[in-house]
């Protein structure tokens, strides 16, 4: 397998893009990534998206985007893995380039959610759960995470307000990211007072509904030597799965797919948690941040909240997370989030993260989680 590098990144602002369609957003990000790389070549297009069929009534999305971006007749596919779709699309492109099938591949993650009413988006997001045995009973995606959070609070004797540092951190970092949707800092008091969605989860536990697209140009590392921008190597690209139904796990508070994909990634990149300079984790809800840090070896079981309370997840901490706002602060256009994470790790490793820069960052990890921990995609990037 050949080594793969990222040589161009692009993104749209994350927000409510009422004047832009799903294809407009995807094209904007692709053009930005190509301009950043200064390379016109692309042998394939991989599109990460979860909800274009469910919301916009648009499948065959990758061909639509390839046409709109002036890329015909290259091969193009959409890759769907619920909220991990972006990460899975990057994984697809890595496999394509590493195998030698392509020399250059474009990856774009795109989602358009704000055209639709909240109850419709809530129902669409619940398609990540088991349609027969979870969503069919009115168990929303938020409800599944709420069930986990209450049990976590019970087992580890913590309070809801103890989760506040995750959201406070994400918003503080988003304030320094001009692309982020929620750029206002919040306090622990704001967190406690925010309205309930499915108790104990409230609005400030949760990533918001939004639109956005982010893109990468990847190529064989051997082709990247003369590139305009410093190439960032993909040291690991891994994916692992667990049951879709949350109740079917031996212990729902152990996110085995997340642990498995992280372990495979550490093995592949020959690093351990201590070598990771920043971690763009999947903070769709604060409980996900806690379970991900524990599954990936940054905290023992039940102790992730302590890590957050001690400020160790801040940009100057020993494991900075969500350094440009994460899903909570930047926004979570679901199928695009995995690509936003990779773009942000590249910005950090190139030293282009502005006021949000993590000093001396050399190794960064990005992780997308789909469903309630049912599929996890992990990438480790190095400069």
């Amino acid at each position: 397998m050949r080594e793969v590098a990222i040589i161009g990144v692009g993104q749209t602002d994350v927000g409510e893009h009422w004047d832009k369609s799903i294809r407009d957003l995807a094209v904007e990000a692709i053009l930005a990534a190509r301009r950043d790389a200064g390379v016109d070549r692309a042998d394939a297009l991989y599109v990460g998206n979860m909800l274009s069929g469910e919301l916009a009534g648009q499948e065959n999305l990758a061909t639509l985007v390839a046409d709109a971006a002036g890329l015909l007749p290259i091969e193009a596919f959409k890759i769907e893995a619920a909220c991990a779709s972006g990460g899975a699309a990057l994984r697809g492109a890595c496999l394509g380039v590493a195998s030698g099938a392509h020399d250059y591949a474009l990856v774009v993650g795109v989602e358009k959610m704000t055209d639709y009413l909240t109850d419709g988006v809530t129902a669409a997001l619940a398609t990540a759960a088991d349609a027969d045995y979870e969503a069919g009973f009115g168990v929303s995606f938020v409800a599944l995470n709420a069930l986990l959070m209450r049990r976590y609070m019970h087992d580890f004797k913590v309070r809801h307000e103890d989760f506040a540092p995750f959201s406070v951190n994400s918003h503080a970092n988003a304030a320094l990211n001009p692309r982020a949707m929620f750029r206002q800092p919040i306090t622990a008091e704001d967190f406690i007072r925010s309205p309930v969605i499915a108790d104990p989860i409230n609005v400030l536990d949760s990533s918001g509904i939004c639109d956005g697209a982010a893109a990468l140009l990847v190529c064989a590392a051997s082709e990247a030597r003369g590139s305009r921008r410093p190439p960032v190597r993909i040291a690991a690209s891994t994916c692992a799965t667990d049951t879709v139904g949350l109740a079917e796990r031996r212990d729902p508070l152990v996110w085995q797919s997340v642990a498995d994909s992280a372990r495979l990634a550490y093995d592949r990149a020959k690093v351990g948690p201590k070598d990771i300079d920043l971690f763009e984790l999947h903070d769709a809800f604060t409980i996900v941040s806690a379970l991900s840090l524990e599954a990936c070896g940054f905290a023992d079981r039940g102790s992730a909240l302590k890590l957050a309370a001690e400020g160790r997840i801040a940009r100057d901490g020993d494991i900075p997370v969500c350094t440009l706002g994460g899903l909570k602060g930047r926004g979570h256009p679901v199928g695009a989030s995995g690509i936003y994470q990779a773009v942000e790790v590249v910005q950090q490793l190139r030293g282009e993260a502005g006021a949000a820069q993590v000093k001396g960052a050399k190794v960064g990890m990005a992780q997308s989680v789909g469903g309630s921990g049912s599929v996890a995609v992990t990438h480790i990037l190095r400069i």
Partner: protein
Amino acid sequence: MELPRHHRMRRTLYRLEGSACPSCAGRFFPPRQVCPACRKDGLRPFAFSGRGTLYSFTRVVQAPRGFGSLAPYAVGMVRLDEGPLITAPLTDVEGADLAIGTPVEMVTRKVKDATDHGYIVYGYKFRPLVRPGPA
């Protein structure tokens, strides 16, 4: 819910039927063809007793489309007496002080309002265990 889907789920919805593995004695809900523990196929139907204890619970305020008229409503995860966990709506809990560990039992209730297909979907919900009162 589509009529054929409702029809093929009838034993699960009304009898809480899952699967038992003849090779490793594992019991699973919902039904499966292949045992996730020993990876053998040939699982057989197994009806759970419907008794268990509350593993976790939430009240859904922001409901998905199709469930708005029921909101806010309670949902739980129940540890069935036979071992597996099940995610299901809770009922008869208005004003109840729910707690993890509460004994619960399965009942059959309306799950969703009339669908586009014109019929009402019934299925399992769990309620706090009703103990027989003094004679």
